[in-house]
């Protein structure tokens, strides 16, 4: 009985002690180093956007956003900056066409191509649980990096270094 308790105590102590060293807030994406999920969406200015658009040649940034999401507006300036040197693809979640086009007219359009995720199920496949979220995908369509929340000026450095390392 005593030994049983001792083992029990040691086990819990170990778990809790190890737990102290970890940060529970840090959430890695399950998709990292996996292939991008398949999808086929209606395009914004094109007939469609599919996962095959993201296999082509270079490193790509995929940004999940919506015109109704205020933080997306905050990161827009940074996306414009990133789009100068990289190709940025957008997936607009539950967004109406007219609202999106007026929004892009006002703020500028950094996106090479935009998919309209009207039902929001492609966002679910990508494990997006809040807008905006941004992924970096390499030449072979493997997800390399995920950024949750708006990209602020201070985040640019890290994103750019990730892209640089991939190239």
């Amino acid at each position, binding site marked *: *009985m005593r030994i049983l308790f001792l083992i029990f*105590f040691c086990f819990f102590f170990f*778990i809790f002690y190890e*737990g102290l060293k*970890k940060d*529970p807030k840090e*959430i890695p994406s399950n998709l990292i180093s996996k292939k991008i999920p398949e999808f086929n969406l209606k395009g914004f200015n094109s007939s469609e956007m599919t996962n095959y658009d993201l296999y082509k040649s270079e490193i790509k940034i995929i940004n999940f956003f919506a015109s109704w999401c205020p933080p997306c507006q905050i990161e827009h300036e940074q996306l414009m900056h990133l789009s100068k040197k990289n190709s940025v693809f957008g997936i607009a979640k539950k967004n109406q066409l007219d609202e999106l086009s007026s929004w892009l007219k006002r703020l500028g359009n950094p996106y090479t191509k935009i998919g309209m995720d009207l039902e929001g199920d492609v966002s679910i496949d990508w494990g997006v649980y809040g807008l905006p979220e941004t992924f970096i995908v390499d030449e072979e369509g493997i997800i390399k990096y995920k950024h949750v929340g708006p990209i602020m000026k201070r985040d640019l450095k890290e994103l750019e270094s990730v892209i640089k390392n991939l190239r």
Partner: protein
Amino acid sequence: MISELGFLLLIIVFLVSSLSSFELLMNTKYPKNFSFDQDKLSKLIFLLTLSSFICLSFSFVNSDFSLNVVSKNSNSQLPIIYKFTGVWGNHEGSILLWLLVMTFFGFLFSKSIFASTNFKNDVLKIHNTLCFLIVSFILFTSNPFEKTFPPPIEGSDLNPLLQDPGLAIHPPFLYLGYVGFSIIYSISVAALSYKNKALFIKILRPWVFMSWIFLTCGIGLGSWWAYYELGWGGFWFWDPVENASLLPWLTASALLHTIVIADKRGLLVNWTIVLSILTFILSLLGTFLVRSGVLVSVHAFANDPTRGIYILLLLFSISAFGVIKYLNNNTFTSSQSKINLVSREGMISLNNIFMLSLAFTVLLGTIYPLFSNVIFNSKISVGAPFFNSILMPVMFPFVFGMIIGPYARWGKDDLIKILNRLKILLFSFIIISFAVWYLNYKDPVLAIIFIILGCWIIISSLFELVQFQKVNRNIFHIPNKMIAQVSAHIGIGLLIIGATGSSILKKEKIQFQEVGEIVKVNKFDVQFQGVKKVEGPNYISQMGFFKIFSKDKLITILKPEKRFYNSGNQVTTEAAIYSTILGDLYIAIGDVHQNKIKWTSRIWYNPYTIWIWIGVVFLAIGGSFSFVNSLRRKK
């Protein structure tokens, strides 16, 4: 000057209480070699801690920003009441409050006239040692009297969410409950060294009820605050912090049922002691999970790994001490008298099994993310769906036990005979079930079932009073313990109805609403009137105006707010609620649309929510009657 005094007083508390722990340590090796008058020590410790707490309160009220905690959690613009409640609106101060409550209970126990001097000495020795552990935690890791240099001219604000009467009184209540379990632990562990443990059950009883009442009120207040302040439209989110308070509540509820058997029949005495120790261990575990930052929670406490390690050591040393004492003094012989399942004590044992299995599953769900992170290195979050789905199957046998239990006789009874006695009750069950079903037939089946179960509990409890009156002819001389049990059970019935209404049956509408636009929610028409800027003492608020009509008659105007606090740029939502006995209309206002004429409004209709709080009041009343009863019976 005052703050230095407060610090000095804490050091004296540390030194004085160390005498007790020294004695406790030495006596386990060389019995009765050292002896201090523990009685006097605990009085002294209490007075010193109280003075130190007053010093800290004084610094808060006078905005002494040279203290680190004051500068970080207060502000000169703050209304005086929140300057004071800011004392426990931060980690350091709240642990000092914890110590104060703990020493206060030691002080109260030293005044107890029921315990023999020897036993009192043994209990206080353990209790003062617990105080010693907490005071060293304060001094080494969370000193509230730490200075900051140079002192800032103005403090950053008290977290705006805490600037609210509900939250100002919620932590002290919770602590009175949590910490109350420390004296229960001390009494139980001390009782282990005595041959006749049943003697101590009477001493233990009032403490159990008292702590349980406070914890119940504390949890109720916290949930009420979350309901109206957070603007999420719910009252319970299965957050780790909430679970941490629910765990000791569940075991304490099991304990206060068992202690009745232990007192009346002399059965399950060992089990009572185990539950007492377990309850305090769970309180400490909750503190560890909440304060060390090992789990993600909506409650933002300042987290610091060194504190986490200290609390972990505290948790394990206190648990180990209790367990070792128990193992050394118990021979694990099964008690001579067997308990029949169909009997009052059998039903109460059944209650214990369900309470504990519930506690175990909640515990598992709460710490599982930690396990999976450490062992499998994978992040998992366990949310409300898990807890709701485990709660449901346990509810059914639980409710049946609650209905039959009070009618079962002590010793031995027969299920058929019980049901025979309850013919009228069973008949009224059928009628009420049809009535509820008829009134709500459009709602989900699950909701109807739970509301029926809630009604059954209430009716069967009221039926007890009727039965009693039949036998005794006098409704005014109902014994306290009966009022207690009936009231608490009605409380649970109401809680089930309220929780069902505000979770399964709730209706939610989120939209952009234009000025003048009407949104229909349940039977109400909600017309948006516009938004006004209103200035508070230390915030600016955007106050929305909503006219509420029912059948084209204006009932009330609701004014939900979005407050922007001047310091720290924090924003809080103040929901506006129109409560009726059938349900709450609940409005929270969001951001303005780009076109500046539409605003986001979130409107909920939460049926029966008010019964949750009324249920908690019933529980507390029930507990109070038991408490008074347990005090009287000792004389």
